[in-house]
């Protein structure tokens, strides 16, 4: 038992959850589902950070692949299942935070317990209807989707869950979607997530899990974009890292991506560095994603056209304008869309490094142009030419 842990009092939480979910379940079952293109900001707590950001991107008219969120109501419903709370609490109490190996095992037991719960009928129904509608919309039977965790933490705006919860790609068919939804729910109890809450002093019940279901993009290339130059904080530039295939290779750092700097205003490619990209994550004919070697003729080739680079920069800037602060964007080039509309955005979140640095004025308070001209002439100009 961990004495240092804050009290894990599920009893405290459950009445709230029960009354909450009861109210919801009695209402329209559609409340379990929020389509991204009908997202409203008031629903943020219901769909979690990841889903809210995708919905918000739709609001901003950024090209996001279609999809929907399964709200936290569905997650709350499973906790009303007889015995689950007690079982999980018992396991949590057995944790020794210094014993990493044992904790993995405990985490696995908690996850297994959660995944073993039968998904409530209303949730299955809502998911089935929504997935069918998505298949219809895409004109594909059993459209491949990404199933993503989207945690929400009421009153914990600073909490970062990045990378803690599971994401499943290339999920096809409603049965597999439901399986992966369960695993997203249970991923709130990975050993990492448990340890994180322990370190931060967060209550386990303070965190809820929504799940996002979104059409997969089969990309020729993908990557990330910062709406500033991460090497010097220059806000007039968009820095783009790009590599072949799915974005995992870039995000995980498994390849050295092609690196570009694109000016936000005149859309010039100010800097380009094409590197050797030896591996990529790619969809195989079998419908699975595999890590594959990039064939020799593509390894040293740029993975994007200049027009695509400009399109990414323009979208990243649009996101930044919409959110009002520098953004860190994930994007992909969808091989099934025509050139000119083939850049899609997968995620946009605030950039955190440079955005938190104090701003220093460069005008130095002096509006006197003569003094400024003198200092320009006297100080070696080449020092300022460092792009």
């Amino acid at each position, binding site marked *: 038992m961990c004495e240092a842990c804050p009290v894990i009092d599920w009893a405290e939480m459950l009445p709230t959850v029960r009354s909450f979910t009861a109210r919801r379940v009695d209402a329209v079952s559609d409340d379990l589902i929020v389509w991204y293109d009908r997202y409203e900001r008031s629903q943020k707590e219901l769909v979690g950070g990841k889903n809210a950001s995708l919905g918000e991107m739709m609001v901003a008219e950024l090209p996001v692949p279609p999809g929907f969120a399964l709200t936290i109501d569905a997650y709350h419903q499973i906790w009303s299942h007889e015995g689950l709370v007690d079982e999980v609490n018992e396991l949590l109490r057995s944790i020794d935070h210094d014993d990493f190996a044992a904790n993995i095992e405990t985490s696995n037991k908690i996850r297994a317990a959660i995944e073993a719960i039968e998904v409530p009928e209303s949730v299955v129904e809502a998911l089935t209807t929504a997935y069918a509608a998505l298949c219809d919309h895409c004109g594909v039977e059993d459209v491949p989707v990404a199933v993503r965790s989207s945690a929400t933490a009421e009153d914990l705006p600073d909490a970062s869950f990045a990378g803690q919860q599971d994401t499943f790609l290339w999920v096809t068919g409603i049965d597999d979607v439901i399986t992966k939804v369960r695993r997203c729910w249970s991923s709130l109890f990975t050993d990492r997530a448990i340890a994180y809450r322990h370190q931060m002093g967060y209550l386990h019940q303070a965190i809820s899990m929504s799940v996002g279901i979104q059409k997969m993009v089969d990309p020729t290339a993908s990557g990330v974009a910062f709406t500033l130059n991460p090497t010097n904080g220059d806000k007039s*530039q968009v820095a783009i890292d790009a590599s072949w295939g799915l974005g995992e290779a870039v995000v995980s750092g498994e390849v050295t991506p092609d690196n570009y700097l694109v*000016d936000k205003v005149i859309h010039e490619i100010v800097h380009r560095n094409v590197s050797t990209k030896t591996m990529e994550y790619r969809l195989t004919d079998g419908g699975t994603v595999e890590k594959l070697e990039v064939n020799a003729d593509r390894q040293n080739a740029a993975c994007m056209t200049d027009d695509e680079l400009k399109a990414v920069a323009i979208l990243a800037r649009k996101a930044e304008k919409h959110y009002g602060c520098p953004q860190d964007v994930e994007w992909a080039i969808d091989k099934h869309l025509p050139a000119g509309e083939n850049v899609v955005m997968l995620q946009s979140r605030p950039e955190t490094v440079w955005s938190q640095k104090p701003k220093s004025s*460069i005008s130095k308070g002096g509006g006197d142009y*003569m003094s*400024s001209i003198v200092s*320009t*002439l006297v100080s070696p100009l080449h020092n300022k030419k*460092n792009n």
Partner: protein
Amino acid sequence: MAQSRFPSPFEIEGPEGVEGWEELYPYSVSFGENRREYEDNRFWFWDSMHWGQALTPWDSTFMEMALASLSQMNSRHYRIPPADGVDFRVLYGYAYLSPVGVDPSNIEARVPQFMERAGHYFANWGDLYDSWLGKIRETIGEIEALDFSPLPEMEDLEIITGGTALGSGYELQKSYHHFKDLIFKTWQYHFEFLNLGYAAYLDFFGFCKEAFPSIPDLAIAKMVAGVEVDLFRPNEELKVIAQKAVDGGVARAFDNPDDVAGIQAAIAGSDAQAHWDSVAEPWFNFTSGNGFYHFDKIWKENPEIPYAFVRDYITKIEAGEDIARPIEAIRAERDRVVSEYRDLLDSDEDREAFDGKLGLAGVVFPYVENHNFYIEHWTMSIIWRKVKELGATCAKEGLLGDPGDIIYLRRDEVDELLWDYYSNWAVNAPTAAAGHWGPIVEKRRAIHAKLSEWSPPKALGEPPEVITEPFTIMLWGITSDSVSTWLGSEDDSGGLTGMAASPGVAEGKVRIVRNPEDVGDLEDGEIMVAPITAPSWAPAFPKIRACVTDIGGMMSHAAIVCREYGVPAVTGTGFATANLQTGQMIRVDGSSGTVTVLEE
């Protein structure tokens, strides 16, 4: 192997058979033992941007007057704190320049002087520029009024009855002296505003680079560029003529632009001809070169050049293309670029500074762009016309063998020649001129031909640790980086780097264009590789895919025109004309400033 310094000017071996070449130029522009220590310890670069070809004595006159005037404004008028003049020499016919910095201990004392003097110009720029336009027109009028016609058999009676005593001989001497003064005056005016204009531009440039360290130079230039610029007016007028030729049914007359008489006969009385007549003065006082050389062709005297451009525009109009310059769209784009960068600034204070600096740059920039038309094109056209008029008189009077011989005499020697002419006209006796100058001209013509074949080194002497002289960087595009590239160039694998002067990437075949005559050799889709490009080559730009120059900064004429015409350009590469050959396939990246050889 990379070197640490360039060869000494005293080590350079020139071409064979040019003994006595120094006589073509004033003694003061030669490297020599008197000043060897000073000269040997300096950094000299060949200004191939302005003087890419071997100078004749008269070509040298303009180089000397330009550099002295530029220097004087820095050193004696405005007291630019860190920069005195730009020293100049001629080595085997080629102009070498060396920026002269101010001793660091004296910089501070010059600051208040600069503030007061330059401050006056910035504060009164509009009025002073208006007055400058008047001064230029007045100077042009004075030059046009000079009379270099042969001396009369007998003076007019009014000379006698008016009691003036001073006759045509005196007037000819005076006119020539005045001519030299007026040329000098022209170059003084040329630099009245230019250095200050660059300083204000540099200040805005520096501010943008500090706010946005990775901002492309091009973006800064775009914010400052004028929309309606006098320099582009001649070319715009050709478009109007082309449209009128099409509308008036005389388009076919331009099919063979070299048939000047045929075209003039065919379009006589047409709207196209009427428009030509109404704009030729002053707009077609436009040179095919940079205005500095005796061989530059002026549109008015060489209508086959503008006729060829008119023909090209006619082809486009007939193909349904809209050739009009979209003024409104250009203005809107500039405003968009300005407002977006402005929005990206962090504070209102910064935005206020940005507005102030951009405002000043906007006030000074019309001069920076337009002076080129008023001086290099218009005034220099008039000046060369007068030089040729004088040459014709000398030939007609038997003083020189050929009207073109005059350019092989130094300007002070022309004084002697005219004294010989006048005094023997007065005595009514034979001149010594023909016998004296004939052999000299022939010798110099042969020397100049040999000098013209020679490839001068890019730079001489000891390179400075850092290049800080603002005009060297701005106008010539010479930076500490480019100097070290030059030093290491023998390591080079054929690629070149330079200034990212006009964006875009293009691939194509090289065409080396060393002078205006070669422009006609350009074929569709080729990449022009030149020591420099002149604005008057602009109508040829629709043909080319990209442009690479040896010398030139962001504000060089080449850069301005390339951006205007949307042609990718890399300027200031140092070696493009030496390292590339006509026919090679290259890639020009005008956004990163690199040139790559794709295949030999």
